[in-house]
């Protein structure tokens, strides 16, 4: 596999974590424009873990996920009291706050004669754990997609449980869920924390893939893309966000069929889909139809 294909596939995997994070919140009925903040928290936390504290990558990733979940929980506490557009705006504002905090964050150490660590707007250099252990791009790609697979399996398992049904009910009719005894606020807060951990996982892997992160990486554009991938792909299944990633990064970007007009095409695609298929290409109706057809084929 050439370097370009490896890069595109790795980027698709990394973006999938962000898109799945936005998807979880969308299923719970909330549209967040701020998941990039937790992607950033994960990137910085995991980078600090390996580059400064000498943790192995698996431990640093767990630490990053815990930090992402904690940050999302803290943001969720006040913002989940809001609804609809107000929640979306609050998450966007919170994400910008995080980005500015990254710009103000200075924490450096000299390691092997080089200054390592977050240095405000100059970014965080020297996240070399993967590089220094000779892990090739192919192995890293396999790791990223294996983790995407684990997340997909976990989400598919969740859908089959009572908790999964509760989650969909909270997203579709929170008043009804509350009447039936569901603590809607607590469920949404738990979902926000899980979505934060998921975004942080993506961020942790991104930081180690790139060896460098900076506050601008966690700009609103990143969050908008993650959200758009979920909305394009569909909310009927966790495969929806991956379809969204595949359409934009895999098709529009890597084939360059629209060259520099790609972002216009992408924006138009989101607008058209929101009008004609507000719950995306793989919405609940399509997913149920496919599942029904598969069941029918199995029985005949």
């Amino acid at each position, binding site marked *: 596999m050439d370097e370009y294909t490896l890069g595109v596939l790795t980027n698709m995997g990394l973006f999938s974590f962000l898109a799945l994070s936005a998807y979880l919140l969308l299923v719970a009925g909330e549209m967040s424009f701020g998941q990039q903040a937790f992607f950033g928290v994960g990137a910085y936390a995991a980078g600090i873990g390996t580059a400064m504290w000498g943790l192995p990558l698996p431990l640093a990733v767990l630490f990053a996920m815990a930090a992402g979940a904690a940050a999302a929980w803290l943001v969720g506490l006040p913002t989940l009291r809001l609804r609809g557009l107000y929640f979306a705006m609050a998450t966007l504002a919170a994400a910008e706050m995080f980005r500015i905090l990254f710009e103000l964050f200075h924490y450096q150490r000299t390691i092997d004669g080089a200054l390592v660590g977050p240095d405000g*707007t100059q970014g965080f250099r020297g996240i070399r754990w993967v590089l220094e*252990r*000779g892990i090739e791009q192919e192995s*890293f790609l*396999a790791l990223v997609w294996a983790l995407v697979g684990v997340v997909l399996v976990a989400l598919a398992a969740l859908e089959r449980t009572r908790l999964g049904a509760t989650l969909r009910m909270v997203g579709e009719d929170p008043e009804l869920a509350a009447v039936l005894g569901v603590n809607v606020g607590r469920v949404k807060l738990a979902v926000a924390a899980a979505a934060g951990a998921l975004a942080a996982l993506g961020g942790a892997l991104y930081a180690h893939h790139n060896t460098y992160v900076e506050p601008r990486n966690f700009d609103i554009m990143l969050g908008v893309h993650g959200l758009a991938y979920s909305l394009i792909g569909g909310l009927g299944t966790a495969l929806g966000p991956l379809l969204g990633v595949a359409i934009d990064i895999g098709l529009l970007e890597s084939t360059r069929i629209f060259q520099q007009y790609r972002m216009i095409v992408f924006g138009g695609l989101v607008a058209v889909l929101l009008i004609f298929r507000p719950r995306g290409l793989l919405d609940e109706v399509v997913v149920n139809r496919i599942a029904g057809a598969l069941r029918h084929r199995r029985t005949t």
Partner: protein
Amino acid sequence: MMIRVLLAAALAALAAPALAQRLAADLDCKPTKQALVYDCRIALKESGSGKPVSGAEVSVGADMPSMPMAHNVRPAKAAPTKQPGEYAARIELEMHGEWAVKLRVGGPVRDQLILHYEFDEKGAKRAMRGAGHGPHGAKHQ
């Protein structure tokens, strides 16, 4: 299968020796007649001593700092020139503006460097913000 891949990657990662070396680089890019296509010369050197690094395999890619992962510039293989530690590559960007140029160095030495440059019709100059823009050239990542 997934668990096996994860375990294999984790074990390989824990067992493998440290292979990377800290390098530094300077970039000089000139526009070509083709829009958004640049001919770049890369001066690769050891981070501490500043000694030129020859015989390396260098590829040049780029990403936009405010939209990471969304623009996949096709990495170009850089060819060594007659100057010690100098390599040449032609890259094609998607638009003007600031790009984080990614140098992947392999062969006898191994490193990855991210250099921030502002690209326009006249060529490329170091971006004022971002990492690796000290007075002594781009620092290692």
